[in-house]
């Protein structure tokens, strides 16, 4: 019997190796186009994609299909890829290099501004023509690889968590939104409306994650984009001001961050092997709070500034004047501040203070814009320059290079935790006004630390659970992994009434003190 078992083991091992070789050959084949311009790009694309997809699917099947369903974290901290070892660093450097190339040196990938690209970009021409009618750009290449990664690693994730329906449904959701909303629909809409000026056609990508949504050129293009443009503008605004606040109130920010968002989708699928690398230190949490509020203030002020300049120079394109706009913003901020001031006491007072402070700073900035700014200059700085810096600093450097490139070093949600202005806004609401919480199951916690270790957002879940307190944190994206890995059934993500959402009893349940 023993020999049979070891034979099976050896078989699984060789099949694992075989599938790995198949997958990486496909990848190398694709990469070869960087050095030898392809003769037949369609053949190369199909062959390499087929090899990569089938190789990795076979590999995942061997890894997860051959064992009983359950938590699969064996050896995570022994592995040179997932425990910041040599492979982790190698992957980190490779990914970072790729991002630097995409953002600043697309010609390395074969992109050519005159439309006849070579190399890796050229390989994706057939697909690009089929979908949007144009030659591929480095962004099309990126979008395709990004979507493929989410789909492939999504399948892997579902296999890994096949005993957990929350994980399965959530992952199907991010795969769907990425494939349809972020990838296919925008490309196809582009093809169907070739004459309309460019604007972002990913419905779910709302401001401020899409930081240029309210930029002058983008607004103009939407306004000039016919019914489609108007629809996207209206929907974008409705998402920001109506749909998102309602959904966040009902379900917490997870409805977006771990069910819909594309950044979240990559983090949850391709980034899953690295979730344990996020730092749980209290000092890092402090840094996170500062950082997220600074990002929030920055993005709000720049956007308002950009809109101000837009209204100043395009008074005919809008239904309201720049003064009315500023007035509206001031009233909006004052109302939110007043609500915060009167409602949030006790357990929430500290976070409410942070929010009040941020809003106060935004208010002062807005008023000074009104008082001191000219046509194009906002507080003596060119507003478009400000926007450009943001695009460079936060949009590209942070979200791409640091956010994804550093997955294997800093964990999968660095961007979502420290840099994402969207997460900041949703997080504030989640902390202060939402039905969502992670309930701690009475006194059942044994302080083992699995939950904290595997929280990608670096939340020290155990610190709450071992005191019998619920977890109500602005950064929680509701991925549900803490609950999945808990060996004692202590954590449950749920939506319920606001009372007692934040419970702080002196003792966990069990004692009669």
């Amino acid at each position, binding site marked *: 019997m023993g020999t049979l078992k070891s034979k099976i083991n050896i078989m699984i091992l060789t099949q694992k190796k075989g599938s790995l070789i198949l997958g990486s050959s496909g990848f190398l084949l694709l990469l070869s186009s960087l050095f030898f311009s392809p003769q037949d790009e369609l053949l190369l694309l199909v062959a390499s994609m087929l090899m990569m997809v089938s190789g990795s699917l076979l590999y995942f099947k061997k890894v997860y299909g051959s064992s009983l*369903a359950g*938590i699969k974290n064996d050896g995570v*901290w*022994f592995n040179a890829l997932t425990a910041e070892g040599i492979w982790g660093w190698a992957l980190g450097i490779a990914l970072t290099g790729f991002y630097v190339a995409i953002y600043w040196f697309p010609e390395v990938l074969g992109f050519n501004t005159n439309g006849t690209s070579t190399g890796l970009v050229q390989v994706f021409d057939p697909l690009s023509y089929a979908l949007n009618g144009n030659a591929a750009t480095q962004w099309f290449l990126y979008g395709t690889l990004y979507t493929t990664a989410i789909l492939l690693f999504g399948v892997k994730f579902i296999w890994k968590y096949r005993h957990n329906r*929350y994980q399965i449904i959530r992952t199907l959701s991010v795969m769907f939104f990425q494939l349809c909303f972020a990838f296919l629909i925008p490309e196809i809409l582009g093809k169907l409306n070739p004459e309309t000026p460019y604007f972002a056609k990913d419905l779910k990508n709302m401001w401020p994650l899409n930081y240029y949504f309210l930029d002058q050129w983008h607004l103009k293009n939407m306004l000039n984009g016919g019914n489609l443009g108007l629809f996207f503008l209206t929907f974008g605004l409705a998402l920001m001001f109506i749909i998102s606040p309602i959904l966040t109130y009902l379900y917490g920010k997870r409805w977006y961050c771990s069910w819909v968002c594309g950044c979240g989708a990559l983090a949850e699928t391709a980034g899953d092997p690295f979730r344990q690398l996020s730092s749980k230190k209290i000092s890092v949490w402090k840094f996170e709070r500062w950082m997220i509020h600074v990002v929030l203030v920055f993005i709000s002020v720049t956007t308002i500034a950009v809109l101000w300049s837009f209204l100043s120079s395009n008074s005919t394109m809008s239904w309201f004047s720049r003064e009315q706009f500023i007035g509206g913003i001031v009233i909006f901020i004052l109302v939110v501040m007043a609500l915060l001031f009167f409602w949030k006491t006790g357990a929430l007072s500290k976070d409410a203070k942070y929010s009040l402070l941020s809003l106060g700073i935004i208010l002062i900035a807005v008023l000074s814009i009104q008082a001191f700014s000219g046509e194009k200059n906002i507080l003596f700085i060119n507003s478009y320059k400000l926007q450009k810096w943001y695009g460079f600093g936060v949009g590209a450097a942070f979200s791409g290079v640091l956010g994804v490139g550093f997955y294997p070093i800093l964990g999968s949600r660095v961007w979502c935790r420290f840099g994402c202005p969207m997460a900041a806004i949703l997080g504030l609401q989640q902390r202060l006004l939402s039905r969502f919480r992670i309930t701690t199951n*009475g*006194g059942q916690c044994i302080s*083992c630390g699995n939950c904290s270790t595997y929280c990608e957002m670096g939340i020290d879940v155990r610190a709450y659970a071992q005191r019998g307190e619920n977890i109500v944190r602005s950064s929680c994206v509701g991925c549900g992994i803490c609950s999945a890995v808990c060996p004692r059934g202590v954590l449950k993500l749920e939506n319920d009434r606001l009372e007692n959402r934040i419970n702080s009893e002196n003792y966990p*349940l*069990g004692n009669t003190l």
Partner: protein
Amino acid sequence: MSKNTPKKSIVIIGNGISGITAARHIRKQSDHTITIISEETPYFFSRTALMYVYMGHMRFEHTQPYENDFWEKNKINLRSERVTQVVNKKQILEFETGATLAYDILIIASGSKPNKLGWPGQDLKAVQGLYHKQDLDTLESWSPTIQSATLVGGGLIGIELAEMLHSRGKKVHFLVRESSFWNKVLPPEESEMINQHIRAHGIDLQLETELKAIESNEEGRAKGVITHKGDRIESQWVGLTVGVTPNIDFLKNSDLALGRGVKVNSYLETNLPNIYAIGDCAEQMEPVSGRRSIEAVWYTGRMMGETLAQTVVGNKTKYAPGHWFNSAKFFDIEYQTYGNVSIEPNPEEEHHLFWKHSNKNQSIRLSFNPTTLELLGCISMGIRLRHSIFDQWLTDKEPMDRVIQYFNQANFDPEFYPTYEKELSLEWELSKAKLIL
């Protein structure tokens, strides 16, 4: 109020859950000087998580619930040393190093140590239990040379070790004296579910099998075991997991009254003034009704720590744990229990309602009084239940009809999980019909 009482020197032996909980709560409510002594590790860690370190789910640092500077910030002194003697007449402790430390109040929270039942060969190399961090380090050091391991004793630590060794690719032989796994606590159906699950993972589970002797190689290291049936199992490492005993040998020459553990009354007081004992090492002289005199689990250690802290800061409090609860995980199957479920219930006093999923490893067992129909307890496998609801139901002596009607409120499984309330309620209607017949 208590902040104004004169400052005392409080010394705690043991930095496990009980000692640490006592220290934290004393600190919250007083300015007393607090010193915690441990010979094991400099900082508090979660013993229950040792298995995950060996399996590579966590690094050892991850098992430490507080950052290292927490203790200094909270003015809790830590001392890494071994106490060899308590000299109560002088109110001092003596250390292995020869140093001494005076105390006003002494709290003994020294925990347990693994049992050894006097088997031939039990002191060989590569024969050990799993309790302390050092045991984990020892196992880790043998690990590269283990292909096949034998575990003796079918309790919670035994099955954890089986999972640990299995995760690192070792062949595991699991010798269990009883006819089914942990059947002193688990009813037959649940116990059988675990038997099958252990085997499904490829563990060689041998029930009704006892260890006779451990064989040695030339270097004095275990090379195999002989069972009482005369079978020989080759194994380069042997784990002894036949329970734990209070770790109190160092108190033998003190004036403390000792039984199996340090004897305490319901205020956690020992026979000597100003000395208390809590956690695994404490033996209740008058245990709360229906409870054992030594309960070596995490939760009771924590509760004793919370209670004693009250007494120490001047608010004398009886140890009064609420309804019993516990949980564990057997490979992939989670287990939770609330209240009392007997394995051989007296039919006059206790009936069971049992539901099991037709093909998944999931079940629920509710015990109730057949005359009053009040809920007595619950065991669930593969299903998470809400502690607060069960605690309330047990306190309110909730009748079964209502328990079944509102069972969905006790459901603590993640969202979207298949529910089982309907089937449970069908099962209840059936057994009620039988009860009336």
